[in-house]
């Protein structure tokens, strides 16, 4: 976290001049200089960074210039939107990648497999941005089934947490962005599951199980799938972290009021406290997901437990 914030601080001056974003273009240089002084932007690097660290250890990441609120408040208010989006995308990935991946591994020569693999290549190579606009055009403009921007109707959970998961309108708004966000990871996971599963199916113990005359479903789903999922979960955990990063594009396309969109806007407006705050929080998310994955791994893979036991 410390290093991320230090890097953030080092590059912040090259991100543009926040004062420029606060005033109209005809405002004179002296007025801007006075404002810069009052914001403390003219202080030496170490003074500014010291001030930031002092606040940061107390949980205060500074004030956003644009939202005029503490950075932590802004991020906490935007976090639910992003998490819901990632949640929606994750559901799609889990529900589609596992059956499809397994099917492709079991029936490698079926025409459906070929279709899935072909589509997955397309999915990987088309940028998220285009997928989003394409979906929007089909379902929003031509068919007019689904709304194309925003989160729709929200209901309040606790504190700043507002959710669209429990209203029909909110769910309708979630569909296109979730599909878009999952469009990059879904093919990846299908391919991953397929190749892992294929490998497992060729392993000795599966051959032995066949020889033993076990039921084919038992072999596929009890024996083979379990071992397939080990590496998939590792990759998955890391990818969920990455997905937070991909939300930047998806959220921008769909005007989704989450953290990713907020970050891009903050960059456009040179809202430096918010930029640094975002980097620190995203860093935190990465650390947490990776730790969780390591823990889960221990539960699933017995060999790790044995190793730990020694």
């Amino acid at each position, binding site marked *: 976290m410390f290093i991320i914030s230090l890097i953030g601080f080092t590059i912040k001056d*090259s*991100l*543009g*001049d926040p004062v*420029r*974003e*606060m*005033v*109209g*273009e*005809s*405002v*004179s*240089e002296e*007025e801007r200089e*006075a*404002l810069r002084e009052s*914001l403390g932007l003219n202080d030496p690097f170490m003074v500014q960074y010291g001030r930031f660290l002092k606040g940061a250890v107390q949980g205060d990441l500074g*004030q956003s*210039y*644009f*939202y*005029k*609120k503490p950075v932590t408040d802004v991020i906490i*208010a935007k976090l639910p939107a992003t998490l819901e989006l990632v949640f929606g995308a994750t559901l799609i990935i889990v529900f589609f990648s596992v059956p499809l991946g397994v099917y492709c591994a079991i029936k490698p020569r079926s025409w459906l497999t070929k279709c899935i693999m072909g589509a997955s290549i397309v999915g990987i190579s088309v940028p998220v941005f285009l997928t989003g*606009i394409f979906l*929007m*055009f089909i379902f*929003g*403009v031509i068919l*007019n089934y689904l*709304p*194309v*921007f*925003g989160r729709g109707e929200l209901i309040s959970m606790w504190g*700043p947490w*507002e959710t669209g998961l429990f209203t029909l309108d909110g769910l309708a708004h979630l569909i296109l962005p979730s599909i878009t966000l999952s469009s990059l990871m879904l093919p990846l996971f299908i391919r991953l599951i397929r190749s892992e599963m294929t490998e497992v199916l060729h392993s000795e113990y599966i051959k032995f199980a066949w020889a033993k005359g076990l039921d084919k479903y038992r072999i596929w789903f009890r024996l083979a799938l379990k071992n397939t999922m080990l590496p998939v979960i590792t990759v998955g955990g890391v990818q969920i972290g990455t997905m937070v990063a991909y939300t930047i594009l998806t959220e*921008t*396309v*769909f*005007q989704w*009021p989450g953290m990713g*969109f*907020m970050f891009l*806007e903050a*960059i*456009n*407006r*040179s809202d430096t406290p918010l930029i640094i705050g975002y980097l620190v929080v995203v860093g935190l998310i990465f650390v947490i997901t990776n730790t969780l994955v390591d823990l889960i791994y221990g539960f699933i893979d017995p060999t790790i437990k044995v190793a730990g036991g020694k």
Partner: protein
Amino acid sequence: MRRGVALLASAFLATTLSAGVIAKTLKVAYDADPVSLDLHEQLSGGTLQLSHMVADPLVRWTQELKFEGRLAERWERIDDRTIRFYLRKGVKFHSGNEFTALDVKWTFNRLRTSPDFKAIFAPFESAKVVDRYTVDLVTNKPYPLLLNVATYIFPLDSKFYTGFDGNGKSKDALVKHGNSYASRHISATGPFVVAQREQGVKVEFKRFDGYWDKKSPGNVSEVVLTPIKEDATRVSALLAGDVDFINPVPPTDYNRLEKSDKIDMISLEGTWIVTLQLNQKRVEAFKNPKVRLAIDYAVNNAGIAKKLMKGMGTPAAQLSPKGYMGHSDDIKLRYDLKKAKQLMKEAGYEKGLKVTMMAPNNRYVNDARIAQAVANMLAKINIKVDLKTMPKAQYWPEFDKRAADIMMIGWHSDTEDSANFIEFLAMCPNSETGYGQYNSGNYCNPEVDKLVVKSSEETDLAKRQAILQKAENILYNEAAFVPLHWQDPAWAARKNIQLAPVVNVMNFPYLGDLVVK
């Protein structure tokens, strides 16, 4: 998130919808939402759009750029430094307080302390209250643009802003950054009150029940303004019927929207000039008027306006658009490659030049593509351009440093007047007076300076016109910079929205008067 709502506004909502009028909700998508509810915090398009929704100015511009009285019923010039405004009686603020001359004076004084607005009000001496409904605006010297500036005076409820907020801060504090009472609460006289606001997500307005202008044809009872940053999304939202009208309209979608039978396209001839400045301090050759002329001849502005702007730009050869005082009909577009080559030869640069160029990529419509097109055009007269484009947040510091030989700059005159263009873009840069603040070309002609300074004290309009036209002609003849085009503002609306009568070239639609069928 939803706490940041004018509390008072919500108290009045209950009474907002009057019986008999059919409630119409208007959904608007702009590319950004207003940064603050404090109308004096930032001088920007967003703030002015908001101002015309929640407040009324003393006078406002008509579509033909004439003045129309709003809170001032009429006005008269009583001497060469003073205009007397007779205010409308019986006007109520959203808070219920009555509007008087004291509110005008209070607003005027607050504007003079705003870092963004103080420059516009610099020529003014004071606002003098004559009686309850009469106020004099006095300038330091005879000032021809007094009424132009009066369009910026949106009287605010001085009683509403008197006292202290929960944090013990004065309610009228004007804070650029940070949480002030005035940035979250507003009471003015406009047709709409802010019902709910979530920064960066949406603003909801409700019609003000006690609005003074009973003659207004407007029938919109509720406005929902959503910022949609991405061009393609904004257009899709309009086509899908999620929003009723959008601005800006991306040029690439212009044709598509025009063909749609559900959508009306509305555009006006723009007043926002986009130019390129040739830095004479950095490049010796640019000191030579022949080289500058050659560049002007080599750049095909008509082509850019037609091909890149898809007709949403009016090609320019001067700063002042039609309708502005300094606009001169003698000034014609220049484009002639042969002549450009010959001029380069005469100037001794037949072999060409190597220069750097910078342009923003998210400030003006198609800015980066225009810059690329110009670079290609200049290659034809052997000027090799090393072009760099960047987001505006990074561009402005570079512009302030004058970091490239050719820089792109667009300008809109805050006073809707020619002198403002020249003061900022073409007068000799002078850090004391602030003239030439955006003149990165360092073009400097004392004669032009003299003319413009003289024009700002000349109240005889015919004489003033002659002076400004002369200045424009000098700039043209010396090719002080390369004018490209005026950006045409455009709106796209669903057919049932009768937007055309309420839009204007300043791009603050008078939504209070909007009729929805």
